[in-house]
């Protein structure tokens, strides 16, 4: 009995240390981080338009589109499609995405579409696409916004992150679209 009592006291102290003091210390540190640990946001014209790291749904013709999402970009949930590589139903869905993409971008050849534009991400909230994924949309966005294609292409290039040592090349779709709105 004395033993159980010891274990309970021991447990209580460990809970205080690991589940109270430790997270509060990290919380304290977070007050010095960007936006005090509440997640970094992006604003445009004084309005918060989203979180830098969380992808958003873009399906109108005047914006660059992100990847397909299994959770429809619901930031209060997350997840992938969990479809297996050989699943017929899934492959039919990919075919449908290719067709839809080609309708919006009739000037494209299938071979130019990078894989991430027709496959769902792991989180369903992927904020990025590859530079190639953005470049193939330039013509559509330029036509829709009546801005010179060259100018938009330059904008995309400026938004590209091309690491020289480690990791893949990326573009943040939300940041790109915010910059696009500011383009005159």
């Amino acid at each position, binding site marked *: 009995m004395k033993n159980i009592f010891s274990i309970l006291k021991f447990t209580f102290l460990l809970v205080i240390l690991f589940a109270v003091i430790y997270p509060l210390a990290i919380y304290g540190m977070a007050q010095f981080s960007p936006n005090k640990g509440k997640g970094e946001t992006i604003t445009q014209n004084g309005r918060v338009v989203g979180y830098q*790291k969380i992808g958003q749904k873009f399906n109108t013709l005047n914006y660059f589109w992100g990847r397909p999402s299994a959770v429809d970009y619901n930031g209060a949930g997350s997840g992938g499609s969990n*479809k*297996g*590589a050989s699943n017929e139903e899934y492959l039919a869905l990919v075919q449908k995405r290719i067709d839809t993409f080609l309708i919006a971008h009739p000037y494209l050849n299938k071979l130019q579409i990078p894989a991430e534009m027709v496959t769902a*991400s792991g989180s369903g909230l992927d904020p990025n696409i590859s530079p190639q994924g953005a470049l193939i949309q330039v013509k559509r966005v330029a036509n829709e916004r009546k801005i010179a294609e060259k100018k938009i292409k330059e904008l995309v290039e400026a938004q590209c992150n091309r690491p020289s040592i480690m990791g893949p090349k990326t573009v943040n779709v939300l940041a790109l679209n915010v910059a696009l709105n500011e383009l005159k």
Partner: protein
Amino acid sequence: MNTEVFGVISIFIISLVLAIPLGRYIAKIYAGDKTLLDPIVNPIEKLIFKVSGINATDEMNWKQHLKALLSVNMVWFFLCFFVLLTQGMLPLNPDNNPSMTADLAFNTAISFLVNCNLQHYSGESGLSYLSQMVLMFLQFVSAGIGMAAAAMVFLAMKERATDKLGNFYNFFLKSCIRVLLPLSAVVAVILIFSGTPMTFEGKDKIVTLQGDTSEVSRGSAAAFIGIKHIGTNGGGFFGANSAHPLENPTYFTNAVELCAQLLIPFAMIFALGFYLKKRKFSYVVFGVMTIGFLLLVVPTVISELNGNPAIERMGITQATGAMEGKEVRFGPAISGFWSIATTVISTGSVNSMHDSAMPVAGATQLLAMMINAFYGGCGVGWLNFYVFIILAVFISGLMVGRTPEFLGKKIEAREVKIAAFIAILHPFLILTGTALASYLAANDTAMGYWFSGNAASWLNNPGHHGFSEMLYEYTSSAANNGSGFEGLGDNNPFWNITTGIVLLLSRFIPIIGPLAIAGLLASKKYIPESAGTLKTDTTIFGVMVFAVIAIIAALSFFPALALGPLAEYFSLK
């Protein structure tokens, strides 16, 4: 593409370089030597022991170690189970998430208790912040339990005859406070400055750029993710785990989280060498593990980089690899590498969805957990490997016709029986569970209370891949891994309860077994090395251990792998 492969290689090497000094430090801690942190942590430890009335200098034998280990676990289980059952009514619940059902609370409490973190819920909608804190507590102590058990085995391997094997509470608290806590804090701080949230505010409502309304979940994620990787727990704060852009915001944080999970399993092997002053022996062990690891990593990364042949046939180039279930900021190379690291090491966190991985990757992920002895989880990885060493010593002894000895102790019938039992238990639990679930799914049985609807509808994919989903779930449970082919509909009494039982058995029996073997061996007479002794720090012995591991795994699991991922691989060609 080259920048991705270079990333994989550098992250592995950086982890290795960091693990050696950490191993030296861990050896010092268990030996009771002075370290830099002493002035800060000594008083904290003394205070905790004084207030709880535990004498941390009492020497325990192996049975007393086990008794202490099992009693603290029992208390923690009830604490956690109770909080999960009532979280809806308890404070720190800004998103008003409901209390868990009994079967889900049972599964979740066990799975965090046993360092598995199989999650049949999504963090955003399934847990209050209070529950996240309690689970985080379990992430610390369950990792500490594994390390404390390994520490006892280290001590038992010394060249002397004794049944005094140190104090469980002493090993345990030192592992938590001197290793897990500071390392987790470092990872957490790196994460908050890279964009991971650490707040107690609930969901944020926003209007997106194109004008939709949307919500974004946040929370006290950074602290949780630190220990999640350092303690090889792997339970995600958010549903998508480390694929979630707030849980793992950049390629850099991905590298940090990878190093964090590799660090302690690597370091424990080096710690063994420093502690026993048998550095060469630890290099042999590390070499065997690394060869096994690389044999799994290389085909995985290659098949992920090559992409999905079925999508390629539609005319979509796979130059950037297989992207279904993967994040653009990581890419397929490091995602493939992570998927093997996390399954070999029993972390079970994911940065891509394993269910959507290529069949070869699915097979290697499964195999990594089926073998469950390359590096392995915090402390317990060493325990699993120890069992294979005992078997290898025994078989080598038979081959040369001598009494098998390991580090000057005779290995006899009792120890070998225990080791054989542990080695067989793992495939037994995996295959029994999978057989039961696939029998039900194949007959599409009506499940009543156990599952709403017929059994086949818990699958998210048809055919071979569906079979793999069930196989993966039990393999992940038996390996205390926690990753999943997450398409499986697993939040229901059938999966919650059956995997819960597998989790319990496959955590505690493989701790009890090695502790018993080590305790029995420690009390035996020490026989000094002679010309006839089987040398355990040689390449030949390494090959022998590797062969034992490979043969047991192949005999147990080849048929199951052939039905699942291998069949899928050939159907996709």
